[in-house]
């Protein structure tokens, strides 16, 4: 589905999705549409697209003087390089540091086996939980109409 393509004659589904996003449906029709959202992924995505448009239009902001300075700064190569290098360096540093700490604990011969197993379980469990949360967020992101709001 290409949402950017302008269709001169909107389909019945598009009209229904627009009406749902704009809150123009009667209660019974709204319940029917809500049922379709729960069952049909394509229709849910269509509604999310129109909700995003609605929210973005509603919250359109007037330009403030500092916005210009911020936009200019974000385009400057030095600023972009600083941010990219900063994130890369910090991420690699943190991961390497925690991996080293983890390795040192596992290699520590003064520590008995049980705490090492507990540590492995805790770290592994947290990592799996993080992956599941991340997966959930990535899955719901296309349906979240609020991410374009600026202020």
């Amino acid at each position: 589905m290409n949402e950017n393509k302008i269709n001169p004659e909107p389909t019945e589904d598009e009209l229904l999705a627009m009406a749902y996003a704009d809150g123009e449906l009667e209660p019974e029709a709204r319940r029917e549409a809500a049922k379709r959202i729960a069952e049909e992924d394509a229709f849910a995505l269509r509604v999310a697209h129109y909700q995003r448009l609605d929210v973005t239009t509603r919250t359109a902001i007037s330009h403030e003087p500092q916005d210009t300075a911020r936009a200019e700064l974000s385009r400057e190569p030095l600023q972009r390089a600083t941010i990219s290098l900063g994130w890369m360096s910090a991420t690699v540093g943190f991961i390497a540091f925690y991996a080293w700490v983890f390795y040192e604990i596992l290699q520590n011969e003064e520590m008995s086996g049980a705490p090492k197993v507990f540590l492995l379980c805790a770290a592994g469990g947290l990592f799996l939980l993080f992956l599941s949360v991340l997966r959930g967020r990535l899955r719901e992101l296309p349906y979240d109409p609020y991410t374009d709001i600026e202020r």
Partner: protein
Amino acid sequence: MIVTTSDNVHGREIQESFGICRGSAIRARHMGKDILAGLKNIVGGEMHEYSKLLAETREQALDRMMEDARSKGADAVVAVRYASTSISQGAAEFLAYGTAVKLS
């Protein structure tokens, strides 16, 4: 749908009242934005990361309140109020509530 903070809508009469309608939302930015906002503490200025977070949460709570009103058969919400609280660090919580009504 008409949404207003006043107790009535100018030029319209309240035909039916459905009682309170409400919507709440709690949102967070990702850790990267939290780190940048934390660094902003050192130099001062607006924390855009959190301005955006607050705006996203506000609009989501408002939409949920309107959806609650619609489900009751209302076409307007009067006496709308916002409330916010803090549940988790780095997250914003908004509660929007008002009275769902049908206008003549």
